[in-house]
């Protein structure tokens, strides 16, 4: 399934957001990093796939997350809610440094049941930075490369398999948004 192009969101100053995050540390996510609970084994499938492929040894699984209210102004979320006519369940900006990967995976959330109890979930990504050659996002059957700054896409479903990688000279940023349909 392919992602659906929603439009170019001009109500958010994406460049200011990226400029602000360039100087911030963020929360690093790595293979084996303790950023999830996995009490019921819901992460096991992805972890097993990565181990089988050798990602536990490559040392290149890394993305850095930035959260509204903690690393950037929450007004961005309000504007994106208005743009997509949804209520935010969860949002974050991810950064992948040159030579790093978020390999093949689906987003699994310890709190997914809570979000689902509030309504139908819809997942969006927006390209906040000026894209460089070699910065790639793949969502199921859609590949994103050299996307225009501000372009917004809706995923085929909120658990779509995806991956991100960067062989360019600059960090790659992605705005991630899990919304609840109104």
């Amino acid at each position, binding site marked *: 399934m392919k992602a659906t192009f929603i439009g170019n969101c001009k109500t958010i100053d994406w460049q200011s957001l990226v400029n602000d995050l360039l100087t911030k540390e963020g929360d690093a996510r790595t293979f084996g990093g303790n950023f999830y609970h996995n009490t019921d084994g819901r992460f096991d499938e992805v972890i097993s796939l990565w181990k089988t492929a050798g990602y536990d040894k490559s*040392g290149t699984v890394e993305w850095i997350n930035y959260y509204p209210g903690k690393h950037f102004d929450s007004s961005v979320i309000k504007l994106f809610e208005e743009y997509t006519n949804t209520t935010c369940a969860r949002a974050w900006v991810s950064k992948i440094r040159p030579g790093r990967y978020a390999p093949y995976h689906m987003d699994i959330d310890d709190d997914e049941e809570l979000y689902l109890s509030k309504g139908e979930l819809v997942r969006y990504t927006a390209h906040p930075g000026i894209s460089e050659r070699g910065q790639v996002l793949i969502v199921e059957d859609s590949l994103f490369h*050299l996307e225009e700054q501000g372009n917004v896409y809706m995923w085929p479903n909120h658990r779509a398999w995806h991956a991100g*990688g960067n*062989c360019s000279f600059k960090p790659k940023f992605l705005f991630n948004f899990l919304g609840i349909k109104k």
Partner: protein
Amino acid sequence: MKLIGNSSHIIDWSALVAVLKTQTGRSRGSKQEDDIHHNPKVAELRKTWIDAGYEDDESVGWLDYDVPTGVVENISNWLNITPIGGWITSVPPGYCVPWHYDITDDEEDILAKGTPIRFTCHIDKPQWGQVFVLGDHAFHMEEQGNFYQWADWQEWHGGMNMGLTPKFLFNLMGYAK
């Protein structure tokens, strides 16, 4: 870059890839055993990589494989070129070939004989997450055997593998006949 055609009727790429998977390729990148760093162009490129954060980084890594006898000749006949050389590269999951252009020590000799033409061929079956970027175009899930001619033999490119199996690419340079 332009699609020349599909070469699967010339070479049994699946059989070749199966053989390659039983071999140990020559390690390239951060763990490269030979020294090519004497070349000023390589030194300049490496500085760009270091400035981008690739220094001492194990993410930079790929494998080179020799091309079996007859493959370069048969493909060159199909393309109607005089071959300069062919090689196969493989990027394992989690590794990359950062953005670069190809540099060779015998560049002057190559150029003295004509203008080289550069090709790449996607020799394995399409595998999700295996990406080759050439200029503005990112190749993903390319049909096995698809053969592309580059706009320039030193066009900038890079390779990534965020999938689950090794990525293979056949590289060829030659002169138009």
